[in-house]
């Protein structure tokens, strides 16, 4: 044990063993998180109602996928949903949303977490009347296009020059994201759409 070679062998073997275990876990995890995998729904879930309920067996809140609930009054085919999600992610990255917000708690902490933003009661309670919108998704689009016009407190979201198409794609993206099984994060999220 006093010889460096002993510890060199230890370093190589512990690294190798852990790397191999990580590779196996990665293969399994990637299959679970592909769209349509065990934990992540297919993009066409945007055509359905989504809720978030506490599951006593898992001791955690889990997403509930319900029946048909159209987004922007239309039903998206699988190919359309794929394109919409790609556009949504591109809009999210190009505006660096993650540098103020968090997604699954990852990002910056200047603005709210967006993991279950689609399910947030605030859209119906505050932004629908404020934007005079008939639906939640319409209120979200109006807010995203002109956030500085609809402030709720002192810290405002800047206008990021999002087009109508960008905003619709982001709303669809948030709806899909809310249906991902995140092992109960966030805990105790109070949505009005849990049932």
């Amino acid at each position: 044990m006093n010889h460096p070679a002993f510890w060199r062998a230890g370093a190589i073997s512990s690294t190798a063993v852990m790397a191999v275990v990580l590779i196996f876990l990665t293969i399994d995890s990637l299959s679970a998180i592909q769209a349509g995998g065990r934990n992540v729904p297919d993009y066409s879930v945007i055509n359905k109602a989504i809720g978030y309920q506490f599951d006593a067996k898992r001791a955690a809140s889990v997403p509930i996928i319900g029946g048909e609930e159209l987004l922007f009054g239309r039903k998206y085919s699988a190919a359309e949903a794929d394109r919409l999600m790609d556009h949504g992610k591109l809009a999210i990255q190009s505006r660096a949303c993650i540098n103020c917000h968090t997604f699954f708690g990852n990002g910056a902490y200047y603005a709210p977490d967006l993991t279950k933003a689609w399910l947030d009661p605030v859209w119906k309670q505050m932004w629908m009347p404020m934007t005079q919108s008939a639906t939640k998704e319409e209120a979200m689009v109006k807010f995203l296009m002109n956030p500085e016009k609809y402030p709720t407190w002192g810290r405002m979201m800047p206008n990021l020059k999002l087009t109508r198409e960008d905003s619709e794609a982001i709303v669809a993206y948030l709806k899909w994201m809310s249906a991902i099984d995140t092992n109960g994060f966030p805990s105790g999220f109070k949505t009005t759409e849990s049932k």
Partner: protein
Amino acid sequence: MYRSQQLALKYFIAAIALFGIMIVFGLLASAQYVHMGFLFQVLDFSITKTLHIDTMILWLLMGFMGCIYWFLPQELERDVEGIKLAEIMFYILCTAIATVAAVFIFVQYGGSNEFSMWFINQGRKYVEAPRWAAIGIVLVVLVFSYNIVATAIKAKKITGIMGVLMIDLVPLFALYLIAFPRITNMSVDLFWWWWLVHLWVEGTWEVLIGCIMALALMQLLGTARRIVETWLYIEVALVLGTGILGLGHHYFWIGTPEYWLAIGGLFSALEPLPLLGMVVHAVYDAGTHHMKTTNKPALYWMMAEAFGNFLGAGVFGFMMTLPQINLFSHGTQWTVSHGHFAFWGAYACGVLSVVYVALQKARGLEEMNGIRWKWSFGLLNFGMIGMVGALLISGIAQAFYERAIGGSTIQAFIDAQSNLWFLQGMNARLVFGVLFAIGYAVLVYDLLTIGGKHRTKQAAVLRPA
């Protein structure tokens, strides 16, 4: 002085300058928490925060490269192969950084298209740099790797430290390639992104700083090679033995399977072990030499690195890493508290230590001491600990009021951000941030002037350039 060491000094100058820019944008970002509407639609938080974080990554990376370019010719007893190319890459890197910063400040955002990804902002935390600049970073790392490997081959000498360093270059390069693809699925995107962020920062960087500290210890305290290499292997075994699967603590909530809760919790709880080992190592070595050295600032910064790494990365990381706690602490200012302490302790203090080591040789000083370094050491560390404590208070208030009580809704977020304890923490963070900035100013003044008239050019010449 070797030509490579002259390049190292340039890297240190660039790194310290970026350190200052990091502080400026950090202060602006923290002021945006305190004064609502500050720089709204002029230089929004996302921009100030991006520049704060990206300059932090870059000054540390440039600091590491400076350290290696400094020690490499001494370790291998010859100048570095391909040094001309390395010098060119230094200027390319500086130009690229300045260009990206200008684009972030003046252009800020693009439209929802690939052009934005290539030329404006990729919008992925830590790796916001547009793809053209990311290609530049890849080239810089490739040349850096070539310098090290080719020099070792020419010298026909691979010491234990060099062996670890060369193997570490492979993941350092390969993992950065994750900075390029745009992945639609957020869960998959974050899965690979954490490979880059965690395995870089808590894997390859820890090994890299381990190599740098080993080289510095031999020079600073004259510690025997056999001892530092043994410790380096122990550190690598523990860092990678715990850290590779410690990656799991980032996979609790991103859509990945439930088994990561147990794996991530267990292995990240073990992650402080190698950092504790580093403290033991540093204290033991310094103790056997009765803290006697001709370079006090370097020794103190090295001790700060050992303790800061253990406390900031180890203890503060462990405090919030178990899933039962992380469910509430995740994504709050609690994380920011840990992040500040960890990067400062694990890396920044280590780079500053080597900067003083290099300056002593470069200026031919028999002894490095004085009063200014003590002030900068005190102010920087006091400022950092103050910021860390203040952010922890804000973070715990946020974990209680937003996460635990409020259930993480948008209204719960607003309520927590308006909470008195949260605001007190953010105000205190700004005050300690200003103290930290004063410490930085004293540091720069000290680095520029230390040694004064006692500098002797002859002593600096280890070998004609």
